[in-house]
């Protein structure tokens, strides 16, 4: 199943997520007009979502994104781990 969600998140930017899943997430693409420094961690965030169960909790998604952001001393602008997790969670409903 392929699912798509696009939201203007509370930090101000547009976040679009396309997810492919059966019982687990097999593909996930994040796009939008936000800023992440360094940019490359978005690939790490996408990869970290693969093989997660489609019932994965919001808190688990937030924790995974936060860990990658913290490990890279990254800055997110116009988006946050919480708002990104919210859009990802939306696609899994």
């Amino acid at each position: 199943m392929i699912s798509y969600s696009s939201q203007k998140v509370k930090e101000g930017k547009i976040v679009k997520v396309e997810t492919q899943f059966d019982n687990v997430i097999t593909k996930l693409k994040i796009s939008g007009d936000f800023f992440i420094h360094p940019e490359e961690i978005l690939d790490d965030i996408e990869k970290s979502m693969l093989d997660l169960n489609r019932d994965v909790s919001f808190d688990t998604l937030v924790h995974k994104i936060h860990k990658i952001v913290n490990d890279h001393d990254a800055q997110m602008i116009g988006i946050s781990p919480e708002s990104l997790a919210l859009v990802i969670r939306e696609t899994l409903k």
Partner: protein
Amino acid sequence: MKWRVLGLETHDAYFNMALDEAISESVRVGSSLPTIRFYNWSPNAVSIGYFQSIRDEVNLEVCRELGVDCIRRWTGGGAVYHDFEGEITYSVIAPAKLFPKNIIESYGLICGWLVKGLENLGIEAEFRPVNDILVKGKKISGSAQTRRGGILLQHGTLLYGLDLKTMFSVLNVSRQKITDKMIKSAEERVTCILEHSDAGKKEVYEAIVKSFTEGKDYEFAASSIDENKRARELSQEKYRSDEWMFLR
């Protein structure tokens, strides 16, 4: 700290973005001074942010019809229509250590130079975080920044004139939806120099050169042979490639 200023040049979208990256590389290895450049886009072009999907954001069919180039930037942010007549673009490329670590503070610092330039033209403007400059509550400039390999690159636009109809036709809004109401709504949110000043484009350019260089030790120079060569490579091999264009 001495700066290099590259005076107003006109290039296509691919070379413009490639030159920003080539200069970032040469500043990183110390073969070029921190650089401020000013440029136009010809042909007109749409640039999308690094994280955007070109299929989502750009009407590629209309771009082909109108001869408008499409490019993915190295920086985040949103889709921008770059009109040769209606815009002056700047880039600041320098070691990140010269700027605040906090990204929004660094936007504020560089956008402050542009705000000063507008003041030089008698236009009162203000920086609105994250990355916009407003005149009377309407956006006149947007910027985008990346920091890679210790180098800060910020590029941004200054709207001189507005061609909203073309802008809406190349961005991904169906033609049926390009209504007078939509254009009116955009006119309420976006503005340009010509709505506030009779200044010619050359005068505007001179005003922002003055404000960007104020208090700095600088020299006007050209991009180096190596930078131009590298920019041509990046233009062909990276920025024009489908792999880059359809990255997301």
